[in-house]
């Protein structure tokens, strides 16, 4: 499947590093549905800037530690 967004993320790794946080726990912290967290992890949804910051806050890391964007075409 072609990824609809070029934004990549390390949410899965960060969840694992944060006491194996479940997708449901992260969803509750951010205030979204678990399916949205799954969609973001799989690169099927690019969150708004506000939600991206909320996810970074949930892990206590800067935004760029969670989301990356390739600098080459």
């Amino acid at each position, binding site marked *: *499947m072609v*990824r*609809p*967004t070029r934004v990549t993320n390390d949410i*899965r790794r960060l*969840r*694992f590093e944060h006491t*194996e*946080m*479940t*997708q*449901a726990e992260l969803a509750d912290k951010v*205030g*979204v*549905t*678990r*399916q*949205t967290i*799954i*969609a973001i992890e*799989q*690169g*099927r*949804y*690019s*969150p*708004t800037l506000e*939600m991206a910051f909320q996810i970074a806050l949930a892990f206590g890391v800067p935004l760029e530690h969670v989301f990356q964007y390739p600098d080459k075409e």
Partner: protein
Amino acid sequence: MLYIERNVMSFEKKNTWIYGLTAVLSAAAYFAIAGSQIPTTPVTQIDYIVPMIAAIAGSIVLSILAIIAVSIAAPSEADKRDERDRLVNRRGDQVGLYVMSVLAIVPLGLAFAEAEHFWIANSLYLAFVVTAVVSSLVKITTYRRGF
């Protein structure tokens, strides 16, 4: 492993399926009843109003019951929606609006041509059904493929 969970449908995606399916089921029942009379009965004598109202009301009641059943089955997910759900809904509704705008030309044309009320009402109802189905399909596809 704990940190990868099963991907079940969100409450909003289930609602989208319910909305689309109930529209199709009620329309199929209605057109089976009203449409089957067309070859044998003049359209002016076909009693289509009561079956059409019943189909529309039935569709609403059926979808409400299905949503209640879905809410009872997974109470923790019930009525949960977020920015992604709202964007998916907006996209589906936008496409639905385009479809309805185009399909509305048919009953309008029939009215201009002074066609029987039967054809005007039925083409309008069909336009609503097609709009509901297309809108639901766009939402389901958007949920699946992402954006």
